[in-house]
């Protein structure tokens, strides 16, 4: 079976994370027309009704907020990947990064819920974001336990 080596896999993840960051930066510049396009889409994916100017501003603010949280999560992911590359997986800092990414997922879910006022489809995305956040918390708990075991193992004479 085709298997990518651990080192290459980490490098691919880092490259994808870097590309994601670039996409976020580009997204920040084209966000207003992007949001406008989303608002003007045919109304077959959710009931938007007539969005007022204030509503449009709220959608734009939420979109930027989501982008900021995504960028933050991406930074944490890169930091985590760099630690994995150095072989420092089961450490306190790794747990902090995973916890932070998990909280970012919950924050994004919250933003999706607010956007649900205008785009009902957002509730489904919020559901997935919450699921991802919970999954990450489970991974964090597993790594936390493994870190404890490793620490005990390291300090067994």
């Amino acid at each position: 079976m085709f298997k990518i080596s651990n080192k290459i896999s980490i490098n691919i993840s880092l490259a994808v994370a870097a590309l994601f960051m670039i996409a976020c930066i580009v997204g920040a510049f084209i966000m207003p027309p992007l949001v406008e396009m989303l608002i003007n889409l045919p109304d077959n994916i959710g009931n938007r009704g007539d969005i007022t100017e204030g509503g449009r501003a709220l959608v734009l603010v939420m979109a930027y907020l989501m982008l900021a949280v995504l960028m933050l999560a991406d930074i944490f992911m890169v930091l985590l990947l760099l630690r994995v590359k150095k072989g420092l997986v089961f450490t306190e800092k790794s747990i902090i990064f995973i916890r932070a990414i998990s909280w970012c997922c919950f924050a994004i879910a919250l933003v999706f819920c607010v956007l649900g006022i205008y785009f009902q489809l957002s509730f489904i995305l919020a559901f997935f974001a919450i699921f991802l956040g919970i999954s990450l918390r489970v991974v964090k708990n597993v790594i936390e336990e493994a870190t404890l075991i490793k620490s005990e193992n390291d300090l067994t004479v």
Partner: protein
Amino acid sequence: MILINLDVMMAKRKMSLNELSEKVGITLANLSILKNNKAKAIRFSTLDAICKALDCKVGDIIEYIE
């Protein structure tokens, strides 16, 4: 809590950490962890070797305090 009195026994036997490390067969780093009360567990084999090297009982090295 468990207190390790390795330094006391070493002083009594006038034995250095290097010497004990060689006699017991564990690394200086691990012995230092034990001596400074940083260890979370100790193997029976290590305890046996230390007691043999220092010619003492387990209670001379390990002590329980409230």
